[in-house]
């Protein structure tokens, strides 16, 4: 018996990718993967350690799991990977990192269709 909810999630993910996503580059080591991603949420935080403050821009990306193919194989996000998002003349580099007590990514839906990847802005480069 088909699962209507799973079909609905797959439909919504296709709509998200078609209408609410832009291309980013997912980088692991020397391998780049152009992939459609939706910016989930952006947070600005200031963390304090003994009076020394760190400014952190955290950004979540939603990515279709089936699109994550690295080295010819299905892959899951990993700490240290980067997502490179070009906006105008700049490339914003976001590193995949845990968020609070959560790991660096989690499923965004109960049917394991979409990754929610937690990142933090670590550098900005000039677009090529």
């Amino acid at each position, binding site marked *: 018996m088909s699962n209507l909810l799973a079909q609905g999630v797959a439909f919504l993910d296709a709509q998200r990718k078609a209408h609410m996503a832009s291309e980013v580059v997912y980088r692991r080591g020397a391998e780049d993967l152009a992939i459609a991603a939706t910016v989930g949420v952006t947070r600005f935080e*200031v963390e304090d350690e003994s009076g020394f403050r760190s*400014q952190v821009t955290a950004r979540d990306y939603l990515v279709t799991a089936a699109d994550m193919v690295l080295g010819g194989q299905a892959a899951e996000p990993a700490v240290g990977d980067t997502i490179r998002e070009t906006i105008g003349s700049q490339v914003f580099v976001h590193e995949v990192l845990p968020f609070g007590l959560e790991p660096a990514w989690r499923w965004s839906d109960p049917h394991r269709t979409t990754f929610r990847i937690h990142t933090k802005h670590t550098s900005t480069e000039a677009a090529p």
Partner: protein
Amino acid sequence: MSQSVLIQLADAVKDALTAAAITPEIAGEGAIAATRSYVPEFSLPELGTAKLTVVPSALTAELASRGAHEFDYSVDIGIHRRVADDNETDAMVRFVEEVLDTVRSTAIDIAGLRVGVPTLVANEPIFSPEHLREQRTFVSVVRATYPAIRAVT
């Protein structure tokens, strides 16, 4: 305007750390110039190179005799850097030890007051596990406390 003793002390510690030219053993990293700040604040993109920041942090005075107070002046030294892996974290732990060694072995003299070497240098905890896990940033704070005797009046 005359400078406060604590600010002169913080500046002297900053100068001693800069003069020591300590360098984390990480490829591409040079000697680190220390800075003094009241509210040190860094964004992750700024931490590709190590930061060494001296902050005036505490001052206590206790009556030592009928005519003198014993003062404790404390400065915090913040050490920050993004790290790629455990090898770079090891290098930063070593760097913190070198900062600590420099501070504990450098006698400080400021105008009209011989302060000497610190009576207490503390680095607890050695690093922040939360920053290392969530930002891959090495954050460590060394507190150095210097004694000085000053007349009551």
